[in-house]
């Protein structure tokens, strides 16, 4: 199993969700986050004074999938979230040792 952590633009949340559910992925966790990468922050202007806003609001989507589906998921998410401009976000892929469904006690891929 692998965990995908997808950092994307706020308005791309629905597109990414549809891309993932379209592959049969059943669950995900969404968090509103702030951060910056190569895009850096952005400028805001109040009464003529410029402010540099370092931390840009983004959405983080976390989902755990079976290993075989990872390449398709990455491709689908990339397609859905891409605008081609700096700041489109990242996908982090990491191994998951185990998953336990609390209600039933199932573990492993069955619990995802």
């Amino acid at each position: 199993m692998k965990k995908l952590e997808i950092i994307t633009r706020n308005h791309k949340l629905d597109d990414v969700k549809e891309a993932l559910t379209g592959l049969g992925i059943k669950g995900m966790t969404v968090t509103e986050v702030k951060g910056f990468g190569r895009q850096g922050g952005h400028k805001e202007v109040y009464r003529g004074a410029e402010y540099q806003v370092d931390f840009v609001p983004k959405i983080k989507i976390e989902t755990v999938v079976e290993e075989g589906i990872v390449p398709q998921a990455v491709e689908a998410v990339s397609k859905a979230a891409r605008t081609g401009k700096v700041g489109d976000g990242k996908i982090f892929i990491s191994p998951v040792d185990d998953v336990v469904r609390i209600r039933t006690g199932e573990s492993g891929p069955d619990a995802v």
Partner: protein
Amino acid sequence: MIQSGDTAFILVSAALVLLMTPALALFYAGMVRSKNVLGTIMQSIIMISLITLEWIYLGYSLSFGPDVAGVIGGLNHLALSGVTAAPSPDYAPTIPHLVFMIYQCMFAVITPALITGAFAERVRFLPFICFSVLWSVLVYNPVCHWIWGGGFLGAMGVLDFAGGLVVHLTCGVAALVACIVIGPRKGFGKRQFIPHNLPMTVIGTGLLWFGWFGFNGGSALAADGIAATAFVSTHIAGMTGMLTWTLVEWYHVGKPTTLGACSGAIAGLATITPAAGFVSPNSAVLIGLMGGLICYTAVLAKNRFGYDDSLDVVGIHGVGGLVGTIALGLLASTAVNPGGADGLFFGNASFFLSQLTGIGVVGGYTLVVSWVLLKGINAFSPLRMEENDEEIGMDTSEHSETAYQA
């Protein structure tokens, strides 16, 4: 003799001016960080209670009591003694004296509230209250008497229709002194102080504008042609100020902003205030334009001078009152208001000079007294919040409440 039309109009105007104080609270509160929103609102609305009490027991008499040597009103009207439903022959012969008193009370309430924008986000509540009440007694009341209550500036011919000197210049100068004495917010110049809710500021602007019709229109003290002149010139200057600021900002920074439009409107409204009942509509356009342009420049200058006037009280109200008082000296016309004067552009240089004198006297007096007062209070009870409290924010550290639950 009491006229019911005049009385109704001034009563409604008084209510409109009262509305300006909570409107100001919203205007200011939108521009601070979310941890200081309630503290900022509190600094304005508490004035309704405090200054009304000060006004009825002392301030009205000091401002409008029988003149003593041109400097201050006598104590004859303490606790509203002699202020009844009968009209006052000295001030407004067609409305009850009580109506005149309560109308003027609303001006006394909003003036110290205006100052709070300068030291927003960093002042302790108790010394702030002491400052506001004492400032009203020592600055607002005498200056009000000098110009409107039969004092020496009025006798010299200084005109101020609705408070360019009495309200806006005094609060602007006090604001400048306050932000220098109290010092900048923690992290000023390094950290960012971004407005937390500009729609709140927009609502405040709308309500201030609405109230300003009572502020300026009602200053005619009768429902007559002068009130019409003041009402129209108020709206004209507000809208010109808004447009001017927006266009200048668009050109200068690259984008027109909501805060800019609101700031320009308030700048135009503040600038027309002293002149509202004395100038023609075309002059009002010019005054609004000057307000938008000069106040915008003044706000930018703040960044250059490096003092932390948090919400630009100096740049918008102080400079607006100053520019409006000068503009009145240039553009006043007796063809518009026979009870006024002709300005420099209508051949009357002496009136222009008396306006400049008014600025010098009121500005100088306010500066000295505000400075002494702030230093004095600071010695007894520090005005500045403790570093940790300032970091936590006024809402929690001063008032134990939170505006927004996570």
